């Protein structure tokens, strides 16, 4: 009763690309693969940026311990970054992701509807 439906039924069967998607023929599958790939590449790129910026911090502190004592605006670097700056940075990253992911989706819809 509450189990999910597994089939996606397409409403207007007129457009060929939509039908290709619905029937998952070669063209349809290629279309889906390209969308999934575009979104995955986007996610991986942004994740890599944050992994480098955030994930690199402990390593930086370990390799160059003096960086732990640099004072900026009355706070030491670790406290400024981990206590304050990281939060707006994460929000900005999220905002950028949403913009780009929605652009990928718009491109996909245009591609399907134009054909």
């Amino acid at each position, binding site marked *: 009763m509450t189990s999910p439906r597994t089939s996606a039924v397409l409403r207007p069967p007129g457009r060929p690309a939509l039908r290709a998607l619905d029937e998952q023929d070669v063209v349809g599958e290629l279309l889906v693969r390209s969308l999934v790939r575009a979104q995955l590449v986007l996610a991986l790129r942004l994740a890599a940026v944050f992994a480098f910026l955030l*994930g690199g911090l402990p390593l930086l502190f370990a390799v160059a*311990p003096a960086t*732990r004592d640099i004072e900026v605006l009355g706070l030491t670097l670790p*406290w400024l970054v981990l206590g304050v700056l990281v*939060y707006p940075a994460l929000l900005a990253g999220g905002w950028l992701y949403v913009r780009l992911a929605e652009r990928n989706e718009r491109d996909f*819809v245009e591609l399907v509807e134009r054909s």
Partner: protein
Amino acid sequence: MRSSGPYDEAAVVLVVLLTLAVGSYGLRLARTTSDFLVASRGVSPLLNASAIGGEYLSAASFLGIAGLVFAYGADMLWYPVGFVAGYLVLLMVVAAPLRRSGAYTVPDFAEARLGSAAVRRLASALVVAIGWLYLVPQLQGAGLTLRATTGAPAWAGAVLVAVVVTVNVAGGGMRSATFVQAFQYWLKLTAISVPLLVLVSVWQSDGAPDLAGPQGPVFRETTTLRLDDPVRVQVLEAVTVRAPTGDRLLAPGRERLEAGTYVFPAGAAVPHVDRIEAAAGDDWARPLSGAGGLEHPLYATYALVLATFLGTLGLPHVLVRFYTNPDGASARRTTLFVLALLGTFYLAPALYGALGRVYVPQLLLTGQTDAVVLALPRAMVGGLTGALLEALLVAGAFAAFLSTSSGLLVSTAGVIVQDVLRGSVRDFRRATVVAAVVPLVLALAASRLPVGVVVGLAFALAASTFCPLLVLGIWWRGLTAPGAATGLVVGGGLSAAAVLATFTGLVDGGWPASLLAQPAAWTVPVTFAVMIGVSLATKDRIPADVGRTMLRLHAPESLGLDRRS
């Protein structure tokens, strides 16, 4: 701590009454099973984000992080960072596809994606396991907070929280929980930020004493301390204290303090409870210094980062909230709001921890580090204002226990009702009672474990089971049912074994203990490897409709797919 008069009790009563009142507003709207499970998917992004914030900010966030920063210093800043960054990962990897899957719960998703009832049952068992592992410290924390502030017996708080959330959830399901949790986010934000503004201005009018100088914590003034239980402490500098038996010289090294009242002179270095090593302020403020006696801080930091970044997207009570959005785009928008709401909240706990070093260092002696947030107003402000600020913080802490427990209860009961019972509204109510009674019994029976540690283990369990399942299920066509099942068993088994070994104290000290206390760093990669490896070996089991599922997960709603959910 002793009772501070009627304000704390009044705060708890008020929060409970408000919770029930807000919950009964949802009750009038809840009729169908879909209302109960996913609020009929009609929750707007800001309301949903507030609810996620309300549910996510548990006692571990409201009290625990400040306590950890207070005791162990800068490395603990990674906890809140990871708790928020986890949502960025969730946003990029699962938010929209999960909503578009049309599922109600993680087990639904697993079944729809892999067409396997066995994987579904495994996922259901894991949802319940994570839910209970997370509920136990919430209930225990409620008991301790109530005892510390009002003097009520420890079981009273646990029972109170269990009863209130059961009534709310059984009454109105996800509809009620959504309003209750959204309300509780804003309550918690107010409760943690208003007192902090006052405390910081007091600190400044005090001449802004150094929070991280070269000295270790000292008693600022002559301090009278009542110990309810005997404590083993490490003494750093010899000090003569007034003990229950008369003046006593505490020599450097280990000492045992019997229960009773002690008076420490102003300026004396604070002896630390045995498990926390004393650290000078500047070491405490430096990451990777091992302050407080943390072993292998670099490994611990990376393991913590992995567990929190990846665990968030596997927490069933968080995921279930994403199914309540109307569509994939609003699921993304919800996550953006969550990033903003959580980022704002998490500016506060570290400051409480830092102020605690100066104003309530005696908590390092008693070991009640989780109490640092609640203790500061009376230590710094005192009088009626201090008592009222403390009551506000007690209200916030109780809101934390209530909202996290409701969220966990909704998701656990949701799975029980779907997989064990038939799925009617009456069944949902019965499932809720079962889902609440088991952790309550565990919370009352089990010995007390630090909130932060248990919650960390729940994250590790989620990170090494649902995270690989969802990431591979959403992004990789090659995942098969045998691969997913083996991965869940291996990842769940390894992290559960690590959890048990840590609780029972089987291994103490050295690398093995560090690896077991922070298992995510090795269990997550192992699970990914197992899922991928077994899937590659069982290629013939790739579901035939995987292309359709991928389409459904990733195609925007505007394409005109009828999703029928």
